[in-house]
């Protein structure tokens, strides 16, 4: 689609692409409402909703009390009325006060009412570390979301995907948790925190159509084709992984999962059967992380094709430390060590 010369594209970073997705949907569907702490006049602490209130009005885009239980609970009620709410939780770390409304209500409403009532809500929330956010502005709670039955979990890794996936999420008739990797809002991250940040404008995926387009949920993207091993990643780690692999000259196949639930199992299976090795990477804590699910699925489906144990590169099982952020982060050294190990035999 992006190669079609008929379509007007604009260079956007992730924030601008996410903003554009909401702008397009507010325009197209009068039932879409955007709400959250500081999202109205101010346009959000990360600027994701900048200009939307001015353009679409206060009843479509508005500030909320600092009350995540209320934000998600109210959105469930709006969905029952027939609106299509897009609440923002300012940091994923703040979602916990709203978790009962998400787990017991939003996720279960279709099932418990046999589709009498549904919850077409998209909860947008920035997640992940690498911005010196300390333990309450850095967490990656994706495996909590994937463990809830009834919620879809989406994580984009670039501006083009972010817009297309967010539009598909907003149009979805089930609740979607849309986790935005805040470290790459302004540019893809190499994993080297001491190097200058490259802006999105130098990346092909910053050419974003200004109008409506969708990227279907549940479809992974192959970021790099290769034969030596399969790397399963999402969000920020897609870019970190790609940098290290290219530095080491490894012919890795990198799959950007994009949607964790429903997962693109076919893409994973096809790739691992081809390469015979699989490395799973995420920034979240290790134990019961989404990597455990991926490793289990790969061994269930590809065991006789594997030439080495499935490896995991993850954050440590500690709260996200403030000053030692880069010792926690699964950066170049941890990834290189794992790559060397998995390719040894």
């Amino acid at each position, binding site marked *: 689609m992006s190669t079609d010369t008929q379509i007007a594209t604009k260079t956007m970073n992730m924030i601008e692409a996410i903003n554009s997705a909401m702008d397009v949907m507010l325009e197209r569907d009068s039932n879409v409402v955007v709400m959250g702490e500081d999202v109205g006049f101010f346009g959000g602490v990360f600027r994701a909703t900048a200009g939307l209130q001015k353009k679409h009005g206060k009843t479509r885009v508005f500030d909320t009390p600092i009350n995540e239980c209320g934000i998600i609970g109210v959105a469930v009620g*709006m969905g029952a009325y027939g609106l299509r709410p897009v609440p923002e939780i300012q940091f994923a770390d703040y979602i916990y006060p709203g978790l009962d409304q998400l787990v017991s209500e939003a996720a279960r409403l279709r099932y418990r009412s046999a589709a009498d009532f549904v919850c077409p809500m998209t909860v947008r929330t920035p997640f992940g570390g690498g911005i010196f956010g300390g333990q309450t502005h850095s967490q990656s709670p994706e495996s909590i979301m994937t463990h809830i039955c009834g919620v879809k979990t989406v994580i984009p890794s670039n501006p083009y995907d972010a817009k297309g996936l967010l539009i598909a999420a907003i149009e979805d008739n089930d609740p979607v948790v849309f986790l935005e990797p805040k470290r790459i809002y302004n540019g893809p991250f190499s994993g080297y925190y001491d190097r200058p940040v490259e802006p999105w404008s130098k990346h092909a995926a910053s050419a974003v159509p200004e109008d409506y387009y969708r990227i279907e949920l549940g479809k992974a993207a192959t970021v790099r084709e290769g034969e030596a091993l399969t790397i399963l990643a999402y969000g920020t780690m897609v870019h970190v992984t790609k940098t290290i692999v290219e530095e080491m000259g490894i012919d890795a196949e990198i799959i950007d999962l994009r949607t964790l639930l429903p997962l693109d*199992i076919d893409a994973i299976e096809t790739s691992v059967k081809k390469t015979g090795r699989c490395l799973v990477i995420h920034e979240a804590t290790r134990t019961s992380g989404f990597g455990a699910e991926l490793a289990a699925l790969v061994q269930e489906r590809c065991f006789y094709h594997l030439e080495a144990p499935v490896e995991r590169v993850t954050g440590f099982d500690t709260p996200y430390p403030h000053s030692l952020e880069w010792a926690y982060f699964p950066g170049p050294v941890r990834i290189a060590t794992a790559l060397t190990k998995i390719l040894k035999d």
Partner: protein
Amino acid sequence: MPETDRSPASNLPPLSLHIPEPRYRPGDTPDFGDIVVPAVDATQRPSEATKPDAMRDLCYGLVRVLDFDGQAKGQWDPKLSRERLRTMLRYMMLVRAFDDRMFRAQRQGKTSFYMKCTGEEATSVASTMALDRGDMCFPSYRQQGILIARDYPLIQMMNQIYSNRGDHLMGRQLPIMYSAPEHGFFSVSGNLATQYPQAVGWAMASASKGDSRIATVWCGEGSSAEGDFHSALTFATVYNAPVIFNVVNNQWAISSFSGFAGGERTTFAARAVGYGIAGLRIDGNDPLAVYAATQWAADRARTNNGPTLIEHFTYRSEGHSTSDDPTAYRPAEEPTIWPFGDPIDRLRQHLETLGEWDGERHEAQRIELEDLVKTTQKQSEKLGILGHGMHQPFETMFQDVFEDMPWHLQEQCTQMLAEQEAKFGPDWKPE
């Protein structure tokens, strides 16, 4: 903590922790003589546009209409037609007949669970009758009166209670957790007070669309302690949402008396004061007071004058549910000495005072409604009862998790169907 934690030199008195305790336990002789019963016409009825801070006394008083002799009095008298009063009585009697029958069905092993609302019928029946048909109700678990007052088919309620093949929720929900969108009745959750912010969201949506419909929501005094309750009141006051909050203060949350929700310190209606919204404390056993208060709050909401919190002061006459035995924690005679009597008796007395009703008609109606419930029950039981055969195709377990079934659920469904075949053979069908 070490014993010597307090400095021995301290001359401060030791702190003490207060653990609330109800005044009466089994074996005690309860006395409700200290409950203040204001005169029936003592409470002023302010205009629906009155600012909340000018009517705070209503959070601490008690709106009443019916005196204990069956006369409707005072400014709050909704002056309902006699036919409407008879309809209200009929609905409340039908709720009670339904409750008695379904409680018995649970005891007979026909279902797993049931919850009666005995003594609290007015808090849902009369309030629903004061709403418009299009207004949306977000019930807790003891508001079967809403469905009855909106003429929801009894058989559908029973089918849900039995999880039988007529249950449109396909046996997924615990008995009584109905869902009836066509009757303006939101899906009942098993988690408490979660419906509170949802009702506010529905009301906000209605307001943002320029609709004229309002939302109403119920919880018990016990679950008013939940964070969701306070989230809801915060959002409602911030956005001036057209919503009516009902707190059914029936004194008991399973075995915990209202003191564990803060009832020793103030009224539940007074929660409204801190949020700057209108609050009314009413006699929840007085159907006309319930009707009048709801009508007032509905008019207020509908004219963009904002939300109202109504505390229905009432008493849970029976156990929390079929799983509860209240004689284990409170005196058995408490319900019988409740100073505000029984809502059905009180409306009956009022109609008799008006010359619109008598003992003979009452008895005839009671029998007629019992028969209606019994007949309907027989029809429902033809569609199955819980635990006697399985009534839904197994694959329905996997439907409606999402709009479309993703691959992992399809795989698990296939696995389950194989288990079904291994257990029951290839020809098994739901009963």
